[in-house]
């Protein structure tokens, strides 16, 4: 600050001025709050203050000294104002800071309000599966859980004594009136596939349908079996649909669901209502086809069954198998959720311990 230098220059050798300057600066320096700044301002710049005192005293000095004293007084006033303003600013800033510091909270304390709930992991899994097929142009159609033998077996090319029926043990309903025709037997559907027949019966192709829901088998409940379980059924019927389309569709699906890095393979299999039929495997999550305990050394995990819709099924619903072709697939939701999340006991899904359910998220 050149004003300070000049003041020091002027007061050099003059003890009275030097003392005046130092006192003034010391007073300002010693201010700690706004009150002391105001006091200092009055004592330095006020009517009876230091600066006024200098000007009052000028006439008592010889002429030659008067301009220098005048300059000293003016400069001192300027410097004091500046110093006081800056001091005041400093103090105000400190006060503000202190005030804000008092508002500080512990942001790591828990948030207010009650936590959100959860959809059941099986329904979250269904939603994930369905959304992939929605993006491929499928629509969602639900079917009844109580079914007629006709839709559950016969129209799916599984006649009464077909060996496939020995694979599925079925819950039947008691009824008072005896059934004349076994096709009218009422049962809990053993798979979601009857939806295929119901939809085809009432709708003309093209059809691209996905149908999630519960299915039932007379299995004793244990870690890997459940009398109630969930499936997602899907099928497409159109002109010119080929087995290549089936493979392409399910490859897209499996990679979206399990990860693009997974490999997918189609293994020939048997289902009464598709031909050719296949089971779909994805490369094992743990070992990527090398073979480990998760995949029982196979290197692959089975995720679903599929195939080209058997012409016999078309003949039940009145489609011309020379005009239309189609494919169908079905997967177990529990199995997929278990694979994805490493769940080792199917009963956990139905026990509904909220701590189990709440650990999953979208």
């Amino acid at each position, binding site marked *: 600050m050149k004003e300070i230098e000049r003041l020091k220059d002027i007061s050099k050798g003059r003890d009275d001025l030097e003392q005046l300057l130092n006192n003034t600066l010391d007073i300002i320096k010693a201010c700690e709050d706004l009150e002391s700044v105001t006091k200092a301002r009055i004592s330095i710049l006020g009517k009876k203050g230091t600066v006024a005192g200098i000007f009052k005293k000028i006439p008592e000095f010889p002429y030659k000294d008067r301009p220098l004293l005048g300059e000293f007084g003016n400069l001192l006033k300027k410097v004091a104002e500046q110093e006081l303003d800056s001091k005041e600013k400093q103090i105000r800033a400190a006060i503000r800071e202190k005030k804000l510091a008092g508002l500080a909270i512990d942001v790591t304390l828990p948030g207010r309000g009650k936590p959100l709930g959860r959809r059941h992991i099986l329904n979250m899994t269904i939603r994930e599966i369905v959304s992939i097929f929605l993006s491929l142009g499928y629509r*969602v159609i639900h079917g009844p859980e*109580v079914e007629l033998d006709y839709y559950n077996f016969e129209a799916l090319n599984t006649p009464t004594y077909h060996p496939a029926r020995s694979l599925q043990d079925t819950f039947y309903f008691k009824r008072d009136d005896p059934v004349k025709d076994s096709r009218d037997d009422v049962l809990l559907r053993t798979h979601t596939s009857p939806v295929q027949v119901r939809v085809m019966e009432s709708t003309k192709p*093209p059809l691209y349908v996905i149908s999630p829901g519960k299915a039932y088998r007379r299995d004793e409940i244990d870690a890997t079996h459940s009398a109630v379980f969930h499936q997602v059924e899907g099928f497409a019927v159109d002109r010119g649909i080929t087995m290549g389309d089936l493979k392409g569709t399910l490859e897209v699906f499996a990679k979206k669901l399990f990860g693009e890095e997974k490999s997918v393979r189609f293994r020939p299999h048997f289902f009464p209502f598709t031909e050719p039929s296949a089971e779909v495997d994805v490369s094992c999550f743990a070992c990527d086809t090398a073979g480990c305990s998760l995949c029982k050394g196979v290197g692959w995990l089975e995720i679903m069954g599929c195939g*080209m819709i058997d012409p016999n099924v078309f003949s039940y619903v009145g489609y011309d198998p020379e005009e239309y*072709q189609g494919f169908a697939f079905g997967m177990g939701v529990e199995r997929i959720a278990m694979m994805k999340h490493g769940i080792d006991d199917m009963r956990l899904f139905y026990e509904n311990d909220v701590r189990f359910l709440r650990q999953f998220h979208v």
Partner: protein
Amino acid sequence: MKVSIEWLRDYVNFDLEPKKIAEILSMSGTSVERIIEQNVGVSGVVVARVVHLFPHPNTSNLKVAKVDDGERLREIVCGAPNLREGMLTALALPGARIQGFGSPIECASIRGVKSDGMLLSPSELGLSEDASTIAEIAGKVSPGERIENVVPFKDAILELEITPNRPDCMAIVGIAREISALLDVDLKMPVATFEETGPDINNLIAIEIQDKQGCPRYTARAVTDVRILPSPLWMQRRISACGLRPINNVVDITNYILLELGQPLHAFDLQLISGRKIIVRKARYGETITTLDGIERQLDSQTLLIADIEKPIAMAGVMGGENTEVTAATRNVVIESAHFDATSIFLTSKRLGIRTEASSRFERGTDPEGTAYAARRAASLMKQLAQGDIAKGEIDIYSRPWQEREIKLRGKKISVVLGIDIPAEKTRRVLERLGARVEGNDDLMVAAPSYRGDLEREIDLIEEIARIYGYDKIEDTLPPGGGIASGITRTQILTETLLDTLVAQGLTEVITYSFMRVSDLDIMRVPPEHVLRRIPVLLNPLSEAGEAVRTTLLPGILRVAQINQSRGIRSLALFEKGRVFYLDGESSVINEKDSLCIFLSGNVAPPSWIEEDRQCDFFDMKGLIENSFEFIGVRDLRFEKGSFPWLLEGRSASVLVGSREIGYAGQILPEIGESFDLDGEIYVAEMLIDWLADMPGETVQYRDVGRFPGVKLDIAILIDKSIEAGRVLSAILDSGAKHLRNVRLFDVYEGERIPEGKKSLAFSLEFASVRRTLTEDEAFLEVKKIIRVLQEKFGAVLRGKTPGAGENL
């Protein structure tokens, strides 16, 4: 089914690791579940003949055998019951190494007699589980031969899953045929040639088929003067490896052929067949048979039977009878090689709950053309291994001969279905390797073999071609699609959104079994004629807990709550959406509807550092139902005082949408809670949501909400305690007051400061206009109208003064 790779190589040549052949089979539809590597390391074990037996001088439990090891005689101590002079067995020489034994076999002194080696049991040789006898070696083997040359110790067993349409694959030869097609190599069928040296079969046995439907073909062969012995070790090993137990040479041969060709055979002791006649007929009421497993079985008139003139001697296709079993005493044998009706065997096996190697093959359909060949093969092995004489001729009653079918296979159809072109030459070759007869060039005429009953149509052949050619060679494409209605319906959106809003309000979704026990409704005090009693009952439930399908979700969700409470989680907010099922009135039609059940107990929120704990109550339940339905656009949701047997009277409400009662909400009766081992106040609601499908699909039309500030006025009234607040609110809304934008009930008070039997309700009323700012005076006029209505309707008395209302009131 288990298949030995060593055995497979008898019929088809391949040089692939077990893992590789397993993968090839799996990728063609014969799924390999497991590969069991067998590799019993043996050295220093030779074939030896027992020349002499002496009693052990110091114990009666052991014997001393003098055996010939091909070079010299050795003295061996052994206690096996089947030890006899002249037999060939396996001898571990001193220094021999056998896998499973820690150290080499040494000369040891047993009860004072030095044993110069050790005779081995089938178990020690890794052939079967039999550890109590010593291995018997049959066939043309000389002492001194190394045991590795007699029995293959290195093998891999494939455990296969055979799909129900492929009975032909329940045989080693069937799997070999698959490999022959997959690797495009030749299949060698086992030989069955022999000289017939015995008497004419017709002098030994007669066959009569009474049930031609159940038994379309019956082939019999007879072998006389057999020597019942253990079968050779290689045969024992193969049978054991495939999961059967070696018994004696004759029985083992029938099992061997069952495994090899998939044709179940049965051997009867000819001497024990009364009247020298076999009759195939249905069982008669009251007949019984003791089967080979020692169980006496009651037969019914559905069961197909093999009988002699006096008694049942076998359950056809399932299991033989003890009374004609081949034993050590048997001299003459009748071999049965029949074709039984698959359905008949399937039903018998299901009805009686017995599944055997034979029945599991017959029920899927055996080869009708294969019976005579299998009988010949059995006879030739019996001659070879049991030194029998094969009777002249065979009896073959073939009442319904198999007809060859010709199937047209269009070359173009193959590519239309699979989406790829396969060379015609490849197609033909695949079908021929699988045993079909093929004619033509582009479009083919294909005759499927008799063992492939599953090949009936063009599509069946296309599958075969795709399967053998390889699914992996089919190029991935996407279907044409496009231009079709897709997505989810409005009802599906409403339902999912409804559930998501419940989640947003803190509720966790549960899924319970769809079953119910009828007694749950008794616990819930549901009266006899109630709609919840229209329960569809199952014919074949797994347990009492699952005797019916549910008419209500409530018991299920209460049990979930109980599990959680028992684990210390007392504050619960749960919901389930699921189907409920009702019998439709008089008829037996079962209706199913989507229902939504909600459960609340304990604190509204977990204990918090900032908020007071609060127990949930009825109004939490009501509020979240209101929120959720409002969110999906349900307008006229109402709660009315209702009465439900399982709810606390006075804390229960009917839930209505318009005039439709959709369900209930309220506090559950404490006694009912206790019956489910639950304590504390529990609030439940259950509502049908099937009506969401009928909700009109309206699009909201914009309404001007106004820019001008409104006038807010509070009033408090005194009315009789019994008057429901909801009625007062409706009356205010219906009062005709102009500009009334919002009414909010903000205080309810009963107590000291007001008269007995009265309550005070305080409302905040907001008046506003969309066109201008209302004056307070205008609002006062409308409030006056409202108060007048309340006075008239309910005898309401205004409490205190409405601010600014002045003397006018």
